[in-house]
Every structure is written in structure tokens, then in C-alpha cells.
């Protein structure tokens, strides 16, 4: 066990060392989760509070937690390609593909699966913060106008104030002709309402 502890110490000193062969069977994956201060900490997680962050290997095979300084450790991992997911309320983390190679231990092979960006060291940062709630728009006159009742009132106003104006602006002769036509036809037929129907 002592080598692991020493490795841990080493890893604390330099973040570059990510994967190392542990004692006995399996390898050790060592990494760090970094949540930038001030990024979207709108009431979900206090800045720097890492106690509710979980680091998950291969969809639940191993679940681990962060130390106060943000480091995490998976021990006794077989060689192969693994998937690390970080879950934290309020942040979106991309899963990370980590290659643990049996041939050259200590070689870092990690890439974000979301954007295929390679990582030189296993420092995981959220891609973006997650805002779970809609933001209430402040009260504005436009929202009242746009609401169904606003539209209703608007239409009423148009009818009440603009329609008489339209009627007034009509040529009196034309008005009379239209009225006569109406009287002649009696019942308005469908054809006359259609465009071009009045031509004949």
C-alpha cells in the first residue's frame, strides 16, 4: 500500500502524472475536478463545495468522491479503455475516455467524449453550468399587449376608433353605389365576395 500513498503524494505535487501502475493487480487513475470559482453558482452549489460531486467509472462500476482539494483516485483498474463521468448539480461535465495501457504505464491518454478534445492531464472542468429554471421576465407593457386579453382590447380599439374613420374617408359617391349594389343584390352571393367576382 505504501507505493500508492507515495504516488498520491507525488500526484499532489505534480498533476501531470495521471495513470500509474499500482501495487499488485491493476492500475490507478488519478485526476482532479476543478470547478471554477464564480461560474454559475446560482444557489445550487457553493463555490468550491465539492462534497456533493461524484466521480463515476464505467457507468457505475465504481463511484468515488472528491477530496477537499478536488482530487479523486480510482485504484486497481484493469488495463483498457474506461469512461469517467462527473456528476455535480448545476454543472455539465463531459464524460472522459481514459486509456489505461498495459504496455507503457504512466502514459496519459484522456479525451472528452463530447467534443473529442484531448487532455494532457486529467483535470476535469465543467463544459458549462446548468441553469435548471427559466428566468422570469420582468413585467413589461409589451407582454400585456401580447397576451390574449391585450390583443382583445387592441382589436376592440381598432374597431371602435379606426373603422368609423375608414367609413368617413370613403368617397360619398362610391359609398352610395356600394349601398345600392347591396340593395340590388339582396342576398350577397359568394361569387361577389370572391376577388374578381364583382367584374361581371
Amino acid at each position, binding site marked *: 500500500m505504501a507505493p500508492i500513498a507515495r504516488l498520491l503524494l507525488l500526484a499532489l505535487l505534480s498533476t501531470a502524472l495521471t495513470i500509474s501502475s499500482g501495487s499488485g493487480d491493476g492500475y490507478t487513475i488519478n485526476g482532479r475536478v476543478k470547478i471554477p470559482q464564480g461560474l454559475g453558482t446560482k444557489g445550487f452549489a457553493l463555490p468550491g463545495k465539492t462534497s456533493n460531486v461524484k466521480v*463515476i467509472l464505467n457507468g457505475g462500476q465504481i463511484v468515488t468522491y472528491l477530496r477537499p482539494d478536488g482530487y479523486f483516485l480510482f485504484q486497481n483498474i484493469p488495463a483498457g479503455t*474506461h469512461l469517467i*463521468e462527473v456528476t455535480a448539480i448545476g454543472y455539465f461535465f463531459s*464524460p472522459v475516455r481514459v486509456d489505461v495501457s498495459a504496455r507503457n504505464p504512466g502514459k496519459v491518454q484522456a479525451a472528452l*467524449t*463530447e467534443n473529442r478534445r484531448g487532455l494532457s492531464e486529467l483535470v476535469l472542468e465543467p463544459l458549462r453550468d446548468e441553469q435548471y*429554471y427559466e428566468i422570469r421576465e420582468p*413585467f413589461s407593457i409589451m407582454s400585456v399587449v401580447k397576451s390574449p386579453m391585450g390583443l382583445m382590447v387592441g382589436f376592440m380599439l381598432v374597431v371602435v376608433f379606426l373603422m368609423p374613420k375608414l367609413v368617413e374617408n370613403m368617397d360619398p359617391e362610391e359609398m352610395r353605389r356600394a349601398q345600392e349594389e347591396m340593395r340590388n343584390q339582396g342576398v350577397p352571393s359568394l361569387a361577389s365576395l370572391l376577388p374578381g367576382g364583382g367584374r361581371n
Partner: protein
Amino acid sequence: MAIRSFLILFILFFFSSLNPILSLYEDQVGLVDWHQQYLGKVKQAVFHTHKTGRKRVVVSTEENVVALLDLRQGEIFWRHVLGSNDVIDGIDIALGKYVITLSSGGSILRAWNLPDGQMVWESSLRGPKHSKSLLLVPTNLKIEKDNIVIIFSNGRLNAVSCIDGEVLWEKDFEGESLEVQQVIQPPGSNLIYVVGFASSSLFEMYQINALNGELLKHESAAFSGGFLGEVSPVFSETVVALDSTGLILLTVSFQNGMISFQQTPISNLVKDSFGPAKIIPSSVTGIFAIKMNAVTIVIRVTDENKLEVVEKTNHETSISDALPVSEGQQAFALVQRAGPEIHLRVKLAHNWDDNLLKESVKMDQHRGLVHKIYINNYIRTDKSYGFRALIVMEDHSLLLLQQGEIVWSREDGLASIIDVTTSELPVERDGVSVAKVEHNLFEWLKGHMLKLKGTLMLASPQDIAAIQSMRLKNSEKSKMTRDHNGFRKLLIVLTRAGKLFALHTGDGHIVWSYLLQSLQKSKVCQHPIGLNLYKWQVPHHHAMDENPSVLVIGKCGPSSDAPGALSFVDTYTGKELSSLSLVHSVAQVIPLPYTDSTEQRLHLLIDADKHAHLYPKTPEAISIFERELSNIYWYSVEDDNGIIKGHALRGKCTGEVADEVCFDTRELWSIVFPSESEKIIATVTRKLNEVVHTQAKVIADQEVMYKYISRNLLFVATVALKGSGEIGSVTPEESWLVAYLIDTVTGRILHRVTHHGSQGPVHAVFSENWVVYHYFNLKAHRYEMSVIEIYDQSRADNKDVWKLVLGKHNLTSPISLYSRPDVITKSQSYFFTHSVKTIAVTSTTKGITSKQLLIGTIGDQVLALDKRFLDPRRTVNPTQAEKEEGIIPLTDSLPIIPQSYVTHALRVEGLRGIITVPAKLESTTLVFAHGVDLFFTQLAPSRTYDSLTDDFNYALLLITIVALVAAISLTWTLSERKELQENWR
């Protein structure tokens, strides 16, 4: 009706195209949703009450939860739900500030900061072989000013530093057959004793220096009688064990490295012996207990290693661990259940005859027996000792007793739900009184005026708080009657403890709970297991006066041929109507789509010998059933052998059984998957009660496609044998995943698709004519989701209106699954970011509303994803017509929109299942997610197009109407006056 549904469709389309995101404002949290946090059955509890500050208790549970609770109210300060295979072996408090947990079979040791639950360090412990895991935190054992933790696990003894988790020394115990039973650290010494058995008749004792792990002494002594089970330490250098027959007690003393045995036959202690005994280990000095059948015997060991029976009782007795009180004295508690009360006694270890405390506490019958007790002391104002006891009951609830009262209780059984069903509430019968209405009217207006102030931004902070509390405390939502929209229902849940709970959907309170006797440990049934819940009777039409009831199915023991047990429980009263102990086993339960005249649903129980048994056992049910005998088909999956079989009924049972309700079955077909290349990992079918609105799907260019809707479709996923392990254990070349669509009546494979380089786990959901499944793509090293939609081609010609008018269509021709189906499938795959725990789909009353997938992610959140994102007709550049239809341009991955998390900023820790239930209102579906936590909410996948939202402002509407009326009358008088003036002119 048709017009209405068209209208609904139109509105639906209008709204859905407007805003596809389901979203919630922060002040709407708690309006329709509720969230409850639980722990599970407590395995171990450690008090932290030394300081004058807050009184707290650390618990570990069977749901792999470690939590810190407030001892005054039972609230959770912090809680961690460890991984599902990270079972907690032991917890303790070290240095007064760290919580130490040993988990995963003794291979992971963690320290958590006590006040805030932050992990401080983590150590991985390995060892040569599998063994018992023991955790010991000595109080005053130091190595270079460093407190240590002693762990025995995997055949290795470790001393770990409390400060940073570094292993200070380790010592292997590699003896071939050595089984270490106890690690004893006599207080005040630097010695550790490791005792165990080797090759079944050898008692081994190792004495080790705790400071450096040096082996000081190793003694072993043979006992010809052999050993059985556990040992119980009675003194620091004496343990008690049982011989292999379980009839003789052995007092093993290893003082000064000399092992000596002293035999005491149990028959010498008690006159009537009841067969082999079992030791119940306790940490109390000089006291231990044995159990023979139902009899518990408490035995005292005197200084000369003489055994003395101090108590013999038929009641189930629990003994607490020793609690050090003043000057090296130890106190312990015994608790028993007797009828409606529990009796609690606290005694000093060396003084059996006197009680420090004797209390009787009234306890709800439906909490069952006391399973565990933990005690803690406090100093009363008169300087005497007071005791508080934390007890764990048979129903997994956790209670704190103090001064003969239950201070608080937690229903932690709800953390392990097995099955969920729903029940309607009673119909409101009498009208409400007038006075109440008037009061309500005033309140109602006042409330809406406040709301109006809120929307107009005129409200003061007090007003805003008042609005919020008014919305949250809406008494409407927790009423005990049925509502018009069908939002209020009862959620009936069956927990692993064998208890039924009815939760109200309005606010999640427990309406009733019932401990099922048929699922309790008894003489006949040692390990009962609850299996399923079914709706037994749903009052409807002509049986309106009956209460609805549910059927609870359980079985006795884990084996497949264990006899079953049925219970029928009334969901209004929460009382058991009847229960049945079956003679046959229960392998499969098929709720049939037939009901008798009292609306009892017919259920077919298939036993392990492939006989079918019909319930209810009434002549009426049999006559209904015999009419439909030839129409009943089912399938069974044997995933170990890779076989899927189809079955039908043959007729009444032949042979010796003269049972009217027993039927013989015959095998119709079987599909055998090649065992060397394919292993079944998931099977999914449609929900039985799902409603499909229309079979036709109108696509962009006025074409019609007909969905292939069959209740008998089964989705099966198989993986290559190598790929059935964890991610990372296999290369893309040697793993593949095959998805099948199988007709379960004929056994015909309708569709088969292979995903090369993919592996499980597969989570799938089947609805209408589509199936969506989630799996891992090894080549891209990302999760993928695929959709398969299946369409009926035989009806594709029916799109001509004239054919429909002239009756030349084949829509009314009978469908038989035996005719060769003419189907086409469409499928598409997308990347999905997260691991998935479970997938469900929304369901509504009439099936008109568009569907959403509810994805339970690895982060224990529930994401709602529109089905439109999983439409195989998505293309990179949809045409104008397709865009109008609502087809989203194709992207390679599915979007994760934070606002569409149903659980918003909450986690449903340990998420296991998501259940959706339609409300009466077509637009709305009720969603219940359960795990260690419970979460409930209402969801409107296409927004609430058929009802006004809660936010609707009636006051604004009233004001608008009043203003309009005023304006009309004003303009009318104005125009009157104008006309009059014109006439005068």
C-alpha cells in the same frame, strides 16, 4: 369528437412548435412536485454527543447510505449514497471529527468530515483472500501521536492513520482455512487479539502488537466437536462459541496465551432444549444471548467462566451494544415487543437484577418487531443518567425514544420500493357548505388581487412571501377526494420490508400504511419476498360502491419453486381484505384484460411447473376465462439459457390435482439464441394499459403511414458473451449488440439489427410502435440511443379518400398475427452524453399528447426528452414540408437542455424506477421517480393546452371585462349624445 381532437391536435402543434422546452420558474418549485429523502434500513448507528454542541448520530444503511442525522428532529445534515456495489461493512467516528466507513467487502476505507460530509481521505485495502470485514477504532491507541484505525479485511490486518489514511502496518493471515471471527482490542493495552477457526475444529489465537503489527504470540488448540457460526466476545480475553451440533456452549479463554475450553451443554442451562442454537453477538462484557427457534436466552458469564441463564423469553429480543458510562461501567439495553407496546430496559453489564431504566412505549402495530437498538446517554439536570434509544423496526423505520415517548420517526422503508401502482381517491359526495364558499370567495379574491399585484410588480416583499406560501399551501391539492383533472391519486407502494404505503400525490403524505402479515418472517416462511403489486379491483360503471383494491404477490424464499402468497388490500381503508398462502409457486403473473361482474380483474399465475392458475377462484371468473381460453398467449424468457418461449393454454389440469382453476399449458414456439455468441441482457414490451389515439400518422406530403400497433411485440437485446462485462473490459472488435423485435404469439422475428462494436447495459422503453434503447458504443466510446419504428405496410394503400368512402378499404378486416405481417421498420441512432439508470415514457389518458422520454441519468436526475428528437425521419436538411410537420434537423447527439430536467435542481438519490400515470386531463401525466429518495411531479409534454395554468390571473380577466363594459357604455352614451346633436342641427 373528431373535430375536437383535431382542434386539440392543432393547438398542440401550435404550442409545441412555439416552445419545445418544458420549463419551470424557480418560484414554481414545490407547487406540483414533492421530494422526500430517505436512508434505508439502518445497519449501524454511532452517536456523536460528546460535545455540548449539537447532538448528532451517524448511520449506515442497507441502501449503502452513510448519513449524519440531527438527534433532535431526525433531519438529515448530510448524506452520501455510495455506489450500488459499495456495500458498507462498518462505520465509526474517529478523532471526534471524522466518520470512518469501511465498504466494498472491506476494500475501501473512507473518512468523511463530520460537520459537512466532505470526504477527507480514501484508502484502498487489498488482501490475499476473501474474509469477514471488521472495523475497529480504538480510542486511546496512538502511534507517534497518530490515532489509528484497525481494519481486518480480505485476510489482512491493517493499521491505518486517522489523519491521512496512510497504512502504517499490515499483517497477513494466510492460513489456508483460517476464518477470522473477531478482532479484540482490550482497552488500555497495546495488544490486539485476532481469534478464528481453522479447518473447522482448530481454535486459533494471535496476539499482535498494535504499535507495529509484530506477532507476539500464536496459539492454537483443537476441539474435537468443531465450531458453528459466530463467536461472541464476553471478556477481553474470553469468547463464547458453539460446537458444530449447536447444542453445547464453549467458553474459550486465552488468558496469558493459554487456550482453555469449557463446555456447557445448553440442556444444563435450560430444561427444555429446542434444537440447535445460534449466538447473537453482543459487545457487552459478560453478557451474550443465544436463540433457539423463537426462544431467546440471555446468558451471563461469571468471573469463573460459569454460565448462568438470566432471562428466557419467547419474545423477539434485541440487545444494544455496550455503552460505557462512568468508571468503567457498561450499560446496555434490551428491547422487546409485547402486543401494542414495546418494553425497553437499560441495565448495567455487571448488575442484571436492577434496571437503570424501564419504559413501555406505545407503538403502532404496523411497525412490527424491533430489529435493532442503539443507546446513548445524557446527563439530566439532576446529574443522573438519562438514556435515549434509537430503534430500527421491522418495517425499516427509524425511531428515537426518550423518556417513554417517540421523539421522532422516519419512514425509511420507503427507500426500498419494490413496486408501485396507483389508485383513485373516493368521489366527493356531499356538497360544500355555503359559509365555506363565501369565505373561500373572499380569500379567493384577495389571493388574486395579491397575484395581480405580483404580476404588475407592485407587491412588497411581504406580499411576495404571502403569495408564495399561499401557492405552496394550497389545501386543494392534498384533499382526500377525487378531483376533476385526475391529479389527486393514491400511490400504492410495496417496500422490501413487506409494508404497503399509500402516498397522496398532492403533497406526498402517507395516507395509510399496512404491514402485510403474509410477507413477514414466520415459522412457515423464513425469507418472504415481495414481488409485485397489481390492480385487483377498479370500481367502474356498475360496481361503483365497491372500494378499489390491490393484489400483492409475494413468495417464500428466493428459489424459483418457493410457494407464493397473495394479499388483497383495500386502498381506501388500507386494510387487508383477505390473504392466501398458495401451494404452488409464482413464476409469472399475467393480468388478463377481463373483469368479472364486481370489476375484479382476472389474473393468471404461472408456476414453475408451467401450470396456469386463475384468480379469483370463482365460477364466474372460470366461465369468463374458458370463453377466452384460446386467445391467451404469453412468453417466458430464460436468460441463463438464452431461450425465449411462447406459451398457450391447453385445458384443465389433468392428473391428481382436482383444482378447478388450474390449467395445463403448451409450448408454442421457442427461440434459442446461440449461447456462445449471444446473451440476453434486456427484454422490454409495451405497457399493458397504454392507450394509442390513432394508428395513422400523417406525414408531410399528405401521405399516411400506419403504425404497426400490437400488444404482443417484444424487444430483446443480446450481446456477445465477451461484451457482457463492464465497459473497458472488451475491445470493439469482439463485442456486438443485436436488437430484435419478436412477435410473442407466433415467435416470428419481425426485425433484427446488429450494432457492431457496441455493448450493454441496455435500457429500453417500448411504446406505441416504437422502441428506444440506450447502449454503449465502444468505437466512439460514447453512449448511444437508437430508435426503431415499425409500420404496417398492408394498410398503406388506404390513403385514398374515395376508397374509404366507397368502403373498398381493409381497415375493418380482422387482424390475425398468424397472417404474415407486412411491416417496414425505420431506425436511427444518436449519441447521448450520460450513463442511464432507467428510461420511461410519458403516458396520457387518450394518447393524443405527444410523448416525452423520461431518462433517469447516472447523476440521479430525470431528463425529459421529446420523442421528436428520436424520430427516424430526421434528416440533416429537412424540406419545408417536413419542417412544418415538426421534424428537427438531424444532429449527431441528443441535446441536453438543463431546463428540461424534470427533477430541476434536485437529485433522486439511488434512482431505480420511473413510473408515469395519466391524469384525467389529456395534456398532463403524473411522474413518480423512486430510489432512496422519492420524487413526484406533474408533466405536460405539450404544455397544458386544455386547461388554464396555475398562473392564470383571473383578476386581470375580471378587470379587463369591467373595463370593456365601462368603455362600451361610455362610448354608447357618447354616440347617443352625438346623434342627438346631429339631429338638432
